[in-house]
């Protein structure tokens, strides 16, 4: 447990020591603020005191930002060889991966925390469905977990950050768009199956204020499988090099 925390702390401070964290926070807040308050189907356009516009735009901003965070994490360590230094310390593969995972999640949590003023502002404008807001944030964290583990997996199978980034996008786009489109094209059990695989189905139901165990299991199992695959591919060094 302690080792995970040590790694998390290092990763977080490396976000803040470089410009990564500041750029991410600024652009995330800028984009989501712009689309929530000023442009398109923003809050004033809808005319309801709801954070729904923010949640749907954040789904997309996170889709691009999380791979940018995770692409470096394992690929760069493998390229520069520091992974050897790290794994010959008193830590195992799981602790390294979980440490990096929680560092990313913490940065996303900080980004989300900084959007709380939206919520406060909104509560002055009109009657807000408080439950829906909190579950919306909760759903966003769950979705981030899924994206982060997909990103870590992508980063674990290559030494090249760009490849890791594109690969993470490629995998995520299935969950975000393609399964959704397929669900529309098929009927019956096939359609239901793809519908279940689609992130937006689960995310929307959570951000409306319903926390269903089905949705929880969905996000947690994507995260789990992503991390497990990342761990497996990290431990592959035992077999081939």
């Amino acid at each position: 447990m302690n080792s995970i925390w040590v790694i998390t702390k290092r990763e977080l401070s490396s976000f803040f020591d470089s410009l990564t964290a500041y750029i991410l926070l600024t652009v995330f807040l800028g984009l989501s603020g712009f689309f929530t308050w000023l442009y398109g189907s923003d809050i004033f356009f809808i005319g309801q005191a709801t954070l729904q516009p923010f949640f749907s735009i954040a789904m997309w901003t996170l889709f691009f930002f999380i791979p940018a965070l995770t692409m470096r994490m394992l690929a760069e360590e493998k390229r520069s060889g520091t992974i050897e230094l790290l794994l010959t310390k008193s830590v195992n593969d799981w602790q390294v991966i979980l440490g990096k995972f929680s560092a990313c999640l913490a940065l996303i949590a900080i980004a989300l925390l900084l959007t709380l003023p939206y919520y406060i502002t909104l509560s002055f404008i009109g009657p807000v469905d408080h439950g829906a807001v909190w579950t919306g944030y909760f759903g966003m964290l769950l979705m981030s977990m899924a994206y982060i583990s997909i990103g870590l997996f992508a980063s674990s199978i290559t030494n090249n950050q760009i490849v890791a980034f594109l690969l993470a996008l490629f995998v995520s786009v299935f969950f975000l768009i393609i399964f959704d489109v397929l669900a529309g094209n098929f009927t019956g059990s096939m359609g239901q199956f793809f519908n279940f695989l689609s992130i937006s189905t689960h995310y929307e139901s959570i951000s409306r204020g319903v926390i269903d165990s089905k949705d929880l299991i969905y996000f947690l199992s994507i995260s789990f499988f992503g991390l497990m695959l990342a761990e497996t591919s990290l431990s592959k060094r035992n077999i081939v090099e």
Partner: protein
Amino acid sequence: MSIVVENLTKKYGTQRAVDNISFEVKTGEVLGFLGPNGAGKTTTMKIITCFMAPSDGDIKVGGLSIHEHQDEIKKKIGYLPENNPLYYDMLVLDYLEFVANLQGVPKEKIQKRIAEMVVMTGLNVEKHKKIGELSKGYRQRVGLAQAMIHDPEILILDEPTTGLDPNQIVEIRKLIKELGKEKTVVLSTHILPEVEATCDRIMIINNGKIVADGTSDMLRKQAQGQEILRVQISEAGDRDSVISSLSGLESVALVDPVEDNNNTFIINSNENLSSRKPIFNLCVLNNWVLTEMTPIETKLEDIFRELTTN
């Protein structure tokens, strides 16, 4: 703390990087790994440090097997990998603290250990810089400092002196010798005088197999087989008679006069015999003046070349 390697094999695909090797390193021993590139030195080290699993065989570190007790073993080993990878965006002191935390150094001792390491490796001037801003030699010192920060009982150093200037090399060698008194040290290097200067024992690996193992003296003898002396005798008169009397000695196999110097001979002894004493006695007997008697040693370079080219 000892390291026992038993029938270790590591395959990359069909290639055997390490091929069924066994050896033991005792507590307080400094073992030098020699071998051409790709001989299997680094692979062996990576397996000892639990970075990679072997294809076959076992290593016991202090009696604990690498298959079961990885966490405990990693805590006891300080490792400096080849090429010395480091986080270039971290500050030297932050990095040392990070490693100390990972290696489970007790919280209250961390600052003290860091201060000791900084002094020991001479990092004082550079300690507030980012690692990426340091010169190669200083990075190497950071690598050594992080390997030793938790006061491990075993040090595994993969080419510890690359990139250092001659003064630093001498310092680091001295440091390794010093550490080797209490700790078990395994180091690999291409620099042959370095092994002689720092190691108690030398092991030469080629194509994943151990081809030689022993102290540098033992290796020399093994490679040479017989004693070779360079002898200069003056005031001896006739050269041919000197040669014939020298050849007459029981222990002498061959006398070879050096062309351009009348009085100098290269004398090969018979196997396992020394001709130093008989030659001296012969000179005394005939009233010759013995002005030089030097044993000619096979250079470690020659041994290395002989064992690793085939």
